[in-house]
């Protein structure tokens, strides 16, 4: 089965060049061979696209369809056009969930990326014993089940019996009721999210930091640049692509935060607090779909969320191309 077309060590010549060469003497015929070669790559990537069509594209399109109905999952379905969307526009709960989502996303992403950047810089430069151990430890939160993390954190943040309020009590603060205040509940959820992704982001940064040749730093040091100047003029510019990548992925992930708010507010799981203090968009969607059995309305929320993600992805794209062209 081994042929030159199989993936393997990259050929030294540009990928377009060997095509003609491969269609040389040993094939059954140049025309037929070329056809096979043209089809083969598509069959390699086909599984992904087929899976995507079944589990990605079809549900997406079907969601658009359901959003036009008053859709009871176990009963009647009535076509109502765009009524779900006008209702959504006038629904204060939707805008509340949007505000919550953006706030939690901001609180979890910005400090997390900054801290990860700093820590990666340290891990890269400071001579650490057991560096491998520390690097691997960073991944532990990422591979821990979200549900387990959330339940432990929720206990730490508990008003009467939580570790955090006990510590705050020692210095005479609180107790803070984290689930009953919009700001505090956002900090709580954002902490859980940041905790999970912090190590992963740090490792990504660390990996690209290690790709920067040491000579660059040495040359800068010879020229008299201190640690801060090196960080600002070498580290940051070299990391630009990966920083953009982490911003995009954490934005898309941040807009879909679900498990943390669902499990943090055990008393009011579907709303995350009695007055929807930390209800995110996905949790609002779930509340409407599976709490109220309004699949059509839930689908409309899903469509709105999709539109928001597309807009933010576009802004990201524009920003990142601008940054790249400025380089």
């Amino acid at each position, binding site marked *: 089965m081994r042929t030159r077309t199989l993936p393997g060590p990259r050929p030294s010549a540009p990928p377009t060049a060997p095509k003609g060469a491969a269609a040389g003497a040993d*094939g059954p015929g140049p025309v037929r061979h070329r056809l096979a070669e043209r089809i083969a790559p598509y069959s390699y990537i*086909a599984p992904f696209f*087929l899976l995507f069509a*079944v589990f990605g594209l079809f549900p997406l399109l079907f969601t658009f369809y359901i959003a036009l109905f008053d859709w009871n999952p176990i009963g009647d379905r009535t076509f109502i056009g765009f009524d779900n969307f006008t209702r959504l526009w006038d629904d204060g709960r939707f805008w509340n969930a949007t505000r919550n989502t953006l706030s939690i996303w901001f609180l979890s992403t910005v400090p997390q990326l900054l801290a990860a950047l700093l820590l990666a810089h340290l891990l890269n430069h400071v001579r650490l014993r057991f560096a491998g151990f520390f690097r691997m430890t960073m991944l532990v939160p990422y591979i821990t089940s979200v549900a387990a993390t959330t339940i432990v954190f929720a206990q730490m943040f508990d008003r009467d*019996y939580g570790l955090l309020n006990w510590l705050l009590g020692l210095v005479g603060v609180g107790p803070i009721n984290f689930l009953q205040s919009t700001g505090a509940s956002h900090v709580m959820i954002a902490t859980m999210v940041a905790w999970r992704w912090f190590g992963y982001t740090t490792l990504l940064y660390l990996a690209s930091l290690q790709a920067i040749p040491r000579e660059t730093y040495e040359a800068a040091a010879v020229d008299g640049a201190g640690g801060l100047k090196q960080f600002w003029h070498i580290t940051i510019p070299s990391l630009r692509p990966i920083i953009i990548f982490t911003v995009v992925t954490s934005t898309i992930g941040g807009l879909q935060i679900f498990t943390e708010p669902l499990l943090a507010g055990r008393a009011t799981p579907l709303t995350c607090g009695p007055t929807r203090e930390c209800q995110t968009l996905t949790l609002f969607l779930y509340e409407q779909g*599976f*709490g109220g059995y309004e699949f059509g309305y839930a689908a409309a929320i899903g469509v709105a969320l999709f539109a928001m993600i597309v807009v933010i992805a576009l802004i990201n794209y524009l920003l990142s191309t601008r940054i790249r062209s400025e380089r």
Partner: protein
Amino acid sequence: MIKSFSSRRVTPVILATALGLAAVGCGGNSSSGGDGNSFEFWSFSGINQKAAVEKYEAANPDITVKLTEVGTTQETAQALTTALAGGKVPDLVLIQGDDLPRFVEQPQNFHDLREFGADERKDDYLDWVINQSVARDGSIIGIPTDVGGMAVAYRTDLFAEAGLPTDRDEVGALWPTWEDFIEVGRQYTDATGNAFIDNAPTSVFYQAVNQVSQKYHDADGELIHDTNQEVRDAFDLALDAIAADISAGQASFTEGWSAGMQQGAYAVVAAPSWMLNSIRSNAPDTEGNWDVATIPGGAGNWGGSYLAIPAKAANPEAAWAYISEMQSPQGQLEHFLDSGALPTTPEVYDDEDLTASTDPFFSDAPIGTIYTDSLLGLEPFLIGPDSATIGNEFLNALTAVEQGGADPDEAWDTALANIRTAIGQ
């Protein structure tokens, strides 16, 4: 070698992949097969359904019950909704009373239990309980397994410390009305500095609002939650309890609530019959320190569940055989003696086993008679598909006052506005 990449070979690869995917896609529809000797049963977690199932299997050795404890009552209803929409359903499912109306509205999803002779057994059950599972077309969707009944569980040791009586009859006599109950709470809190109740929304509002003649609907099914004075009174009672500062502010079934129960952070929990099991499992070290007294305000019911058979069940007969045996008056009586779940079959309320039944965890309180007394003479009210949502919004508005410092004067209007948005009216 290159031949192997001819288009003739490539096409089957793609086809095989596509077929493989198609097979995966169909996997969800295959049913477990109707062999008649086994059936799938979805129940709630935390109610020890396993004990009843094992008992049934021991009595019927040729039958296998595949029991799944899905989760909370709400999670079980959600899973059932998804299952009904998706096609792969259990043979038997337990539905909590608050979730039931949504399913009764769509009876085509379930077997009409009259097919199995349920109409002949209908008179065995409290009429207002089984009537909640009768659909508009007359079909019977579910058989009631238990009812709530209402009482108050209290800590005798903490009451003694506060200088209050500890005898259950004397305690019950302290609070014929909810106003008296709040006053006793004030005395307790003044004497001990500790909270009296776990939380006001559940232990006051949810109890008082279940003692009404009409709740959120009138007899014709029209919504009256916003104009019904009885609901407003129950709501105001909870606000009074919050203002009296007698509540620990621990929402029911949360970690803090369990911890508070273990540590005696509050002395009283409103206890529908099913709550006794919850207290027993949450605070096992407090055994013997609890007792049960009558609830202020008289008769009432909160909770209770129903067994239903989805229309697409593979083994409906086996599922019905289970209902038939376990939910007969005798079966419910035995279940009560095992677990404390209150029977829905009034003919056993006079049974000596029930009236003589006491619970050592609760200072040998005669739980059989306390709860059945709270059910007799009950005026049933109508429960509609939006009842659970409405109740939840009232509860949330009260919790926001109790824990989040929301303005109590605006709580009622906030609740009504939230209900309007939630039910789209």
